[in-house]
């Protein structure tokens, strides 16, 4: 039962802070609320017995991505309040769209259930050891490819960020 309460708590915090990401006027606040969201999500991962993911999640999102966002805000001096707002109609439309997609997603996914349980002995899949085994055997090729993706992303970012000589 405890886990159920924890789940509700974490979910509530996540959703509230996610909403706050959108509602805050200043970008910097949005970034901070987003950070909070990521932390609560990490909590969810732990609850799902996916410890490795939780750790990676913290490192990647809270550590790297958020820092990038913060740097961007800082460097470009973007922390201006309410500079541009969409019209109310657009916001309304957006809200409706969001609501509809929520309903439709639930409608689509609700029928899903865990019909076939995989190998029941594989209980500790979230641990580094088990995950690593899968990753380096079955998914070796995509794993290596993702490193190339990273490399090219890095090169791309550097290229784009570089100031024009002229």
């Amino acid at each position: 039962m405890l886990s159920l309460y924890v789940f509700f708590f974490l979910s509530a915090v996540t959703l509230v802070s996610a909403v706050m990401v959108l509602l805050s006027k200043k970008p910097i606040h949005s970034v901070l609320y987003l950070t909070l969201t990521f932390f609560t999500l990490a909590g969810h991962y732990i609850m799902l017995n996916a410890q490795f993911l939780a750790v990676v999640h913290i490192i990647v999102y809270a550590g790297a991505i958020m820092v990038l966002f913060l740097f961007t805000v800082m460097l470009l001096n973007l922390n201006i309040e309410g500079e541009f707002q969409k019209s109310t109609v657009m916001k309304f439309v957006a809200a409706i769209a969001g609501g509809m997609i929520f309903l439709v997603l639930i409608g689509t996914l609700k029928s899903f259930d865990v019909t076939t349980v995989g190998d029941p002995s594989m209980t500790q899949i979230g641990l580094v050891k088990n995950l690593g085994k899968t990753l380096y055997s079955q998914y070796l090729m995509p794993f290596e490819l993702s490193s190339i993706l990273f490399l090219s992303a890095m090169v791309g970012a550097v290229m784009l960020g570089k100031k024009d000589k002229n």
Partner: protein
Amino acid sequence: METTVAQIQVIPLQYYIIFCSALFSIGVIGVLAKRNALVIFMSVELMLNSANLLLAAFSAYRNDPAGQIFVFFIMVVAAAEVAIGLALLVVVYRSTKTIDINALNRLKW
């Protein structure tokens, strides 16, 4: 070890589905309602994360590591995407002095 699974399954899978859908919808609303490119990026992150969480949930309920592996890859892609995306944002800002997406309408007919 059976207990771990049982313990997880105290929470019905439907809860995760509803929660993740809600989070995803918030992301969608953000993308649609905001004009600030930076916030739109963040909303995209929200969507990615909701998908991640759902994958992890399915993975745990099905005892299948593939789901978690995919989460892992999605993180990789997300990280790369943010790096490139923010770099693009910087470039855009340099040329237009704003990050309002409505300024980026050069592609119209």
